[in-house]
């Protein structure tokens, strides 16, 4: 069994990070040059880490499957990034951001990590402004803020509806500076297809060049995975189409523990599914819930009427009714389940009855069209392009969709996995969001990890290894990993079955949405656990991948990723089945309070479930890291 030591520093919560930094190892500038670090990914987490590590003097090699680092999925984040600046003087503080985040995560995150995140948030904004991120400003020239779900203060910084794009361009520009300085070597169109472990330490990766199909080996003194989340296991999600789990799944199969895989986030405000050809779902930013009001008709009969003909008195503003303290701004898991509930009651609107209204008419009355356009114009435009409807005139129709994965590879306080030398940052790790993530906190985590935390903690590991003894790429572990990769690709190409990789992906996604989605129960999960291995079996005999391995081959890329999703899905269901409680985004129908709220079980489940691979035909081993709260009390999460 893996030994999981979170390495949380002792002392009072507010002092842990300062103390840890003071006690962390240092490496002299002359020696830093000798260390080689691989960073996979150039989203907010990867780009910032690669830049910051290079600034410190390490030799950094950065890999992305995109054709440019600037295209990472982070680019699509719309709403904003949290920071405890208290520029609004509305009572915010590091403590409050910390507490909101830990409560938002339903007390399933690590206290010390979350406190550190809130602490570092402040520096992120300073640094991004210095990098030239054009955040929204007030007339006086100071930074503007908006509110986001799960908070009663206004602490979200934003750049129109393109915050992720602007932050990513900021981190990318820092990366460009280091590439120009020769301190980072950038490999684009290069997909990591395996992790290489030598004597129990991560020492390199195997990479496929997507343009030429060439497989290559890369060694390093440490490997950092910043490869994003795995929401695309559901096929339809708000993630970019190429987002995938291959990097973290390969690492899992090489010994890294996978923590809380079933903790996924369903975002309440997305454009509803409209047909089977659909390739992705589009998010309408949570910021819309600042000024938009969610409602459905009180009576089923009214569902087919045009919304503007339904009088106020016949509308059910269900979030305001159910959660008066937070209203439309309650956290995502709660807002999503509430939408599902009213639709299950037959009061949903639009095709198939799977939709609720997000209405801006009050905001337009209060603020005027111009102000609403200034705040949300690009989102309204996007909505019109996709649906052909004008949300200034009629309410938007929205429905929950898979959006984010809180689970990920297990890491300690240093952001190192149980495999020494393997670091995991950003959405790819599990560390900060517990069972539910609050809006505007993923961007914060990505940049906190990459710019500020990893660069300070990585030396604790590097100082223990000697770069002169770095295994060469001729080491048998590299040869073996490469051979496995080539065999697997050959198998995919030789199958010549009848179904496309996408068909398998779509079927898997539907299974996961039905049985491991917004609400879960034992019977459904057991059914999924029977169906997934069957589907996987069929995949390996009946998938059709045309073309060759030695050229650009998108069908092969896809099949290789779907093969991993088909394994990961099983682990997610297993985790969901074992967690006999409801918490955050994990809602087990068997465990609810009489009013339908989630019933958490702190006595039995206040732990991180870290799953360890045990071999192809063996059940994974469950390791438990107990969650010990030193300074906050676990309470029932209430937004009423």
């Amino acid at each position, binding site marked *: 069994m893996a030994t999981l030591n979170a390495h949380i520093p002792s002392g009072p919560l507010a002092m842990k990070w300062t103390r840890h930094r003071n006690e962390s190892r240092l490496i002299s500038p002359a020696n830093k040059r000798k260390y080689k670090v691989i960073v996979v990914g150039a989203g907010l987490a990867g780009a910032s880490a690669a830049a910051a590590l290079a600034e410190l003097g390490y030799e950094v090699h950065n890999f992305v499957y995109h054709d440019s680092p600037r295209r990472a999925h982070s680019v699509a984040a719309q709403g904003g990034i949290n920071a405890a600046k208290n520029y609004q003087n509305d009572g915010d503080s590091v403590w409050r951001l910390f507490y909101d985040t830990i409560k938002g995560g339903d007390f399933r995150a690590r206290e010390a990590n979350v406190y550190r995140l809130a602490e570092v948030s402040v520096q992120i904004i300073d640094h991004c*402004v210095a990098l030239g991120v054009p955040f929204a400003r007030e007339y006086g020239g100071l930074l503007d803020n908006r509110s986001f779900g799960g908070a009663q203060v206004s602490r979200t910084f934003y750049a129109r509806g393109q915050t992720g794009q602007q932050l990513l361009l900021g981190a990318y520009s820092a990366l460009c500076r280091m590439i120009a300085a020769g301190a980072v070597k950038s490999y684009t169109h290069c997909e990591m297809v395996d992790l290489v472990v030598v004597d129990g330490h991560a020492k390199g990766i195997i990479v496929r060049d997507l343009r030429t199909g060439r497989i290559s080996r890369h060694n390093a003194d440490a490997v950092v995975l910043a490869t994003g989340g795995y929401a695309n296991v559901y096929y339809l999600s708000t993630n970019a189409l190429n987002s995938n789990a291959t990097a973290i799944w390969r690492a899992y199969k090489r010994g890294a523990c996978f923590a809380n895989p079933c903790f996924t986030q369903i975002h309440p405000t997305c454009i509803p599914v409209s047909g089977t050809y659909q390739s992705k779902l589009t998010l309408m930013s949570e910021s819309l819930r600042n000024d938009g009001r969610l409602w459905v008709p009180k009576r089923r009969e009214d569902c087919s009427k045009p919304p503007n003909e339904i009088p106020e008195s016949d509308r059910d503003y269900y979030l305001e009714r159910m959660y008066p303290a937070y209203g439309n701004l309650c956290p995502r898991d709660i807002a999503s389940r509430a939408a599902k509930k009213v639709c299950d009651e037959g009061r949903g609107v639009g095709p198939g009855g799977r939709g609720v209204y997000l209405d801006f008419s009050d905001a337009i009355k209060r603020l005027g069209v111009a102000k609403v356009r200034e705040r949300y114009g690009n989102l309204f435009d996007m909505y019109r392009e996709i649906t052909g409807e004008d949300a200034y005139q009629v309410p938007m129709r929205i429905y929950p969709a898979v959006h984010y994965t809180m689970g990920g590879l297990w890491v300690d306080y240093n952001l190192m996995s149980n495999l020494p030398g393997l670091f995991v940052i950003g959405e790819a790790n599990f560390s900060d969001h517990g069972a539910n993530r609050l809006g505007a906190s993923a961007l914060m985590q990505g940049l906190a990890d990459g710019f500020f935390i990893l660069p300070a903690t990585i030396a604790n590991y590097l100082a223990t290894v000697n770069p002169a003894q770095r295994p060469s790429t001729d080491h048998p572990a590299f040869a073996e990993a490469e051979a496995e990769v080539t065999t697997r690709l050959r198998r995919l190409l030789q199958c010549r079955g009848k179904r496309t990789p996408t068909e398998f992906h779509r079927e898997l996604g539907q299974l996961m949405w039905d049985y491991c989605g917004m609400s879960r129960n034992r019977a459904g999960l057991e059914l999924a656990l029977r169906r997934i291995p069957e589907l996987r079996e069929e995949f390996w005999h009946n998938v*059709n991948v045309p073309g060759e391995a030695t050229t650009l081959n998108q069908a092969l890329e896809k099949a290789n990723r779907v093969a991993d999703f088909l394994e990961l899905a099983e682990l997610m269901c297993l985790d969901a089945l074992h967690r006999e409680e409801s918490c955050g985004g994990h809602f087990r129908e068997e465990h609810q309070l009489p009013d339908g709220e989630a019933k958490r079980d702190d006595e039995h489940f206040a732990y991180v479930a870290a799953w360890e691979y045990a071999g192809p035909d063996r059940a994974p081993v469950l390791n438990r890291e107990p969650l010990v709260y030193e300074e906050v009390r676990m309470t029932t999460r209430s937004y009423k």
Partner: protein
Amino acid sequence: MKVTLKVWRQKDAQSPGRFVTYVTPELNPNMSFLEMLDVVNEDLIRRGEEPIAFDHDCREGICGTCSLVINGKPHGPHRGVTTCQTYMRSFKDGDTIVIEPFRARAFPVIKDLIVDRSALDRIMWAGGFISVRTGSAPDANTIPVPKDVAERAMDAAQCIGCGACVAACKNASAMLFVAAKISHLGLLPQGQPERYRRARAMIEQMDREGFGACTVTGSCEAVCPKGVSLEFIARMNRDYAVALLKGDPIQRAAAAI
């Protein structure tokens, strides 16, 4: 609805390419253009043929990965949107649609509709940044930035780096892209110290990459999915001229102190 596609197919950079005609299966007008290509590709795969290679990722108009020249227009028939935001309802049943890659000397074809746009990254390496070391920045509100200046910078910063401006230009010039970046940073107070040096370095790199000269025909602005304005080119030219004629005014000012 059904449409006929004339698609550019090219095995790799070395091989010659040609148009191949496909008749689509039955389509739903609410499909996106790329979903239509997905449907065609699924069909091809089922028949054991190689699917049409095309670039895409976010499918919501922000990552800049999708490209395609549709009926002669980069990013298709509509202004202000990318290919991935183009919907089949913009076409009629029975239409013939010609699909080509973004063509430019600096964008060699990798396969079918996928081109190599790494030249744009190399222009960024040349100077598309503000040199600040992580952890050294002052409090974010130390320097107020007038709202309209921040907004103007944001107008330029919205560029998604797709390269449609290059594909639309008869000279295959990358001026709009470069101007967007130079203006974004050059408008903000934080970007001032390196303003002229940046403009010069990026423009010189652009020339080295084999992009053509700008003759202000404006076709770039017309296809830009983010509405990046030609005015930014004028602004960049001024900065560049200053940098060439007078050297770096910021450094000269410093020398005079």
